[in-house]
């Protein structure tokens, strides 16, 4: 493997590079996903898709803050029935297309996965409100996460990734549940519970009152989650949260990420994927490293 080769095998999928478009960002339509593939993403994840059409929360749904972004989109999507066509258009981009799916219970995940056949892999977004639990989300309950993962694995032969929320006391417990359920990889992290209030009026700014923080502000949080998950799990960890440069990608990989996803940073530049891959490639070459050398390096340094 030449040191500037960025291609990886991730849960059985071949990626030309490990920089992936994150779920919910420029992933509403097939052509938008195709465009991101053209901008150099090694794979693309769709907007999270559910079983019924959903308009999402009222606007404002997203805000740029000093140090990141706050959003509460509310999982808007046209349902898998309508998204199927978009998926096949996205595939024309020539990179793996991962369908992000969400639901409130195992059956719902199964229904959506079946309805979205043809994805290269499925990413289970377990951030949906817990049907029975009050105020909590599915992803905070290890039992449910394990069941959902197992159900998804039974439903499809392609890889299943589980996207984890950082809004738990112990993310490793949830990661382990996913792993027990048969997940091929975990993806960490989704956004961090947050809120902003308009001081001119006293109103919470988001239509949903509160939302999730992403971007630079959450990168140190994501690095810690990825570090802990890598240490505890035997399956690959895909790092996401605040990555906006090749340096950020390297840090996340050293924490243990086999690949990374980029979401909010498209704000600065949709060409961020090529930018990161070329920086990463130059870094590896200059240091005579390959990707395997840096994934999890922090753990090997600590053990020394």
């Amino acid at each position, binding site marked *: 493997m030449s040191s500037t080769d960025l291609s990886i095998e991730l849960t059985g999928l071949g990626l030309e590079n490990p920089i992936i478009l994150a779920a919910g*960002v420029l992933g509403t339509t097939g052509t938008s996903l195709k465009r991101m593939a053209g901008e150099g993403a090694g794979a693309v994840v769709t907007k999270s898709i559910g079983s019924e059409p959903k308009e*999402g929360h009222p*606007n*404002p749904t997203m805000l*740029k803050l000093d140090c990141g972004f706050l959003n509460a*989109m509310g999982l808007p999507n046209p349902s898998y029935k309508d998204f199927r066509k978009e998926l096949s258009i996205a595939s024309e981009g020539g990179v793996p297309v991962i369908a992000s799916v969400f639901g409130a219970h195992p059956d719902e995940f199964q229904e959506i996965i079946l309805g979205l056949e043809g994805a290269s892999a499925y990413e289970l977004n377990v951030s949906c409100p817990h049907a029975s639990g009050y105020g909590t989300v599915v992803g905070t309950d290890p039992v449910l996460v394990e069941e959902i993962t197992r159900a998804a694995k039974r439903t499809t032969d392609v890889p299943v990734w589980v996207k984890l929320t950082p809004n738990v006391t112990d993310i490793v417990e949830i990661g382990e549940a996913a792993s027990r359920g048969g997940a091929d990889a975990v993806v960490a992290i989704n956004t961090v519970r947050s809120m902003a209030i*308009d001081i001119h009026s006293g109103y919470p700014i988001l239509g949903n009152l509160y939302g999730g923080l992403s971007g630079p502000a959450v990168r140190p949080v994501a690095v810690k989650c990825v570090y802990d998950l890598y240490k505890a799990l035997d399956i690959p960890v895909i790092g996401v949260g605040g990555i906006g440069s090749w340096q950020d990608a390297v840090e996340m990989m050293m924490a243990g990420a086999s690949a990374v996803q980029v979401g*909010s940073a498209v704000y600065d530049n949709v060409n961020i994927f090529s930018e990161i891959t070329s920086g990463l490639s130059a870094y590896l070459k200059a240091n005579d490293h390959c990707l395997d050398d840096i994934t999890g390096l922090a753990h090997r340094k600590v053990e020394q």
Partner: protein
Amino acid sequence: MRPVNAEITEIIRETPTIITLRTDIELDAAPGQFVMVWVRGLDEIPMALSHPGSITVQRVGEATEALSRLEVGDSIGIRGPFGNGFEVKGEGRGDGDGGGGGNGEEYGDEKGNKIMVIAGGVGGAPLLPLAQQAQSLGLDVTILIGARTADELLFEEYFSKCGAFSVATDDGSKGHHGFITGAMDQFNLAGFDQFYICGPELMMKSVLDILQAAGLEAMAQLSLHRYFKCGIGVCGACTIDPSGLRVCRDGPVFSGDLLIKSELGKYHRDATGKKIMF
């Protein structure tokens, strides 16, 4: 950015369905750029700036209805300006400032001086500052505005001061009787260097078809309307087929040759992302 507080300082009743809200803020924006207008506790919607501190709102639903009920002294939240805005090309300016959805071709002294502004309904909101800027740059401006009926013609008085001026009304109550496309017949389109268009999507599509028939689609800049969520180019709600471009960030102004090959006039998407046919 967080929303800036904008207090309503004046309310101008433009037509039976359209008002202009003047506020105490001034934004440094190019014509065609938009802001996200937050009606607190209700919704946030995109609006063009009809003036550095003003929006011009047509009542069509809940949020615009709420805006129409505001009084002087009330306030709204404003984020922006966002998007690219129209590119004004003329001898008066070689600096290319103002962004622009058009191609980056250079216009010589001979070209770019004669422009046509075509506004349908509230589409006049982003086009008024464009027409005013073009006039002040010494361009030869021709304006066509259309509406359902004479009462609904927006900014008639202001536009008429910016150059040659025609109107069309669907019901014939003023000017050309019929659609604005009919009013275009009286002009030698090939004599114009740039067309600036904003209005209902099917009207824009008809206008663009006419321009394409004359081989002029590349000389058109159109401001598109799509459902916006984030407004800042991240969520993907507003992307158009087949380019995948974001109306809120790569637009809302696009060149006609890009749009002629697009979903324009065929479909748009609702808040769920589902296609809605026109």
